[in-house]
């Protein structure tokens, strides 16, 4: 049990008759970057709130750092970091004052707090913004401040709920470098994101849909086991039309424009030449189809289309 930082079994949460999280089980080993993926409304944030002890569990059980999520929320919250989608900062306090305030909430004070704040200001590149009021800070700076705030008490595990939502491509990379550093230092990171390129860097991924766990594994596992077919691409200048047309060809799923190509999944047993032939018959021009490397976005799309019982 020692090396499992999170261990949940049949975790369930109901809101009235609606089952938001439905018998979900997973484990996270210490030091892992654990990606928690799924469509909007799949139950990701609800699960995280249960892990933090903020939201009562309807059924099932779970432990975070060995503490029972049903009975030990105080102990858990003292040891975990949490960056929510809509984090709250004190708008009339400066960046530095916010950090000192939240540090105090976590029981830090004096030289230890000063040192920790300095360390985090440097790590999240907030230097230069220390004296600015939280109000009116650009989104990316707020996001960095929120990350710093969640790390003040040296948590053993951090829950990052869409930390890179509105973050620009350069800053997203910066965030993921910090996540990799935390993991290398033995901290555990559970992260949700809708950017399928960045979650390629997770060690392990859980995919949930309609509150149910649909797939789990490394990015490589998911691509090899949860893609029902082979990815192909054609080059064309009429991408929207070609994608719309391909979507109607038997055996083709998830046709979508990507860069200068249209990518699509071809289910097993279908002739790879058929989609291009169908396009030519309808007067659309494109290159000969070529196999494409699968991405996690392809897996996400395939798993989202699986119609389990909602």
């Amino acid at each position, binding site marked *: 049990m020692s090396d499992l930082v999170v261990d949940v079994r049949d975790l369930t949460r109901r*809101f009235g008759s609606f089952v938001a999280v439905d018998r979900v089980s997973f484990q996270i080993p210490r030091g892992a970057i654990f990606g928690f993926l*799924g*469509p*909007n*409304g*799949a139950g990701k*944030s609800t699960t995280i709130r249960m892990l933090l002890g903020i939201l009562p569990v309807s059924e099932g059980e779970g432990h975070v750092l060995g503490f029972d999520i049903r009975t030990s929320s105080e102990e858990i919250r003292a040891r975990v970091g949490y960056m929510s*989608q*809509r984090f709250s900062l004190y708008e009339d306090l400066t960046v530095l004052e916010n950090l000192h305030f939240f540090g105090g909430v976590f029981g830090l004070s004096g030289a230890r707090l000063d040192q920790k704040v300095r360390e985090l200001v440097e790590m999240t590149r907030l230097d230069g913004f220390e004296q600015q009021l939280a109000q*009116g800070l*650009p*989104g*990316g*700076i707020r996001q960095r401040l929120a990350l710093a705030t969640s790390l003040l008490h040296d948590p053993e595990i951090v829950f990052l709920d*869409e930390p890179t*939502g*509105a*973050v*620009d*491509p*350069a*800053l*997203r*990379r910066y965030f*993921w*470098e910090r996540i*990799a550093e935390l993991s290398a230092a033995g901290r555990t990171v559970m992260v949700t994101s*809708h*950017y*399928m*390129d*960045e979650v*390629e*860097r997770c060690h392990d991924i859980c995919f949930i849909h309609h509150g149910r766990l649909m797939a789990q594994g490394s*990015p490589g596992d998911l691509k090899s086991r949860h893609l029902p077919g082979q990815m192909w691409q054609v080059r064309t200048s009429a*991408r*929207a039309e070609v994608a719309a047309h391909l979507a109607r060809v038997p055996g083709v799923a998830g046709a*979508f*424009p*990507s*860069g*200068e190509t249209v990518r699509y999944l071809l289910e097993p047993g279908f002739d790879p030449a058929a989609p291009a032939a169908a396009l030519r018959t309808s007067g659309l021009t494109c290159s000969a189809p070529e196999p494409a490397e699968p*991405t*996690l*976005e392809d897996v*996400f*799309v395939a798993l*989202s*289309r699986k119609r389990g019982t*909602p």
Partner: protein
Amino acid sequence: MADEAVRVRGLRKRYAAGVEALCGLNLSVQTAQVYGVVGPDGAGKTTLMKVLAGVLSFQAEEAQVLGRPVPDGLAQVRHHIGYLPQRFSLYGDLTVAENLDFYAALYPPDPEGGRTRQDLLEMIGLEAFRDRMAADLSGGMKQKLALLCNLVHRPRLLLMDEPTVGVDPVSRREFWTLVFELQRGGLTVLASTPYMDEAEQFDRVALLSEGTLVREGTPAEIRASVPGVVLELVCEQPFQAARCLEGSPGIQDVQLFGDRLHLFAAQDAPDLRQALEQRLGQAGLQVHRLRVVPFSIEDVFLRLTT
């Protein structure tokens, strides 16, 4: 010009604190174009949207939307414009369907054809949630509902500030499929986005940085607008590999792309690749593949703004 849905010349915006958010911007969006605005935090994307929506004062030699001057002429074309700010207000204590009805009542839809509210709900995957209170929707679903509220009156111009942030990959595809379909019916779209894969599908893209237009053109023009080559490296441990390769002779920059790295160089050469493989080998990092790939908009973004 009648076929310009948006036209600004010399657009400036200075905030009270003395920050110049826009420094003399020129921009034209043709009717029925899907036009994208990208750029780092603080580039001025949101300011531009607010100016065009008429909710922020500014200085400009010229600023027109649907042929009317901003802000004085906006009242005449308001009902043809949809504006989706980053934080769109939904009524939390109304259901999904009631929110749509409310916005439809505010801005009555053109009765001529088009999609019904029911169609829109189904298309964007909100049909199952039509009777849920907006306050109880997940973040991404709220965003989808906000989009729909801006489509019920069938606008001619849609201004959207990062509309797909927090929206899952499948819904994001459905959303853009819907937008491109509306475009074929004549809708003009000006949208900002942090998703470079979305920008690749737009008709034209403006790359802003610190209030200035850094690049403007079709995605192909943007991709071709920086010199040098991109080498794609597929290897074990990309984070370590990135650190190992920083400062390598001949390499201008190293950036993570998913599970791989992009290395920017002035030119490709066999001895450059050999040196890189050697350097990684010495660090115990195995190279699976190293090859030249075409520039993407994300590559250009990173080259020009970091």
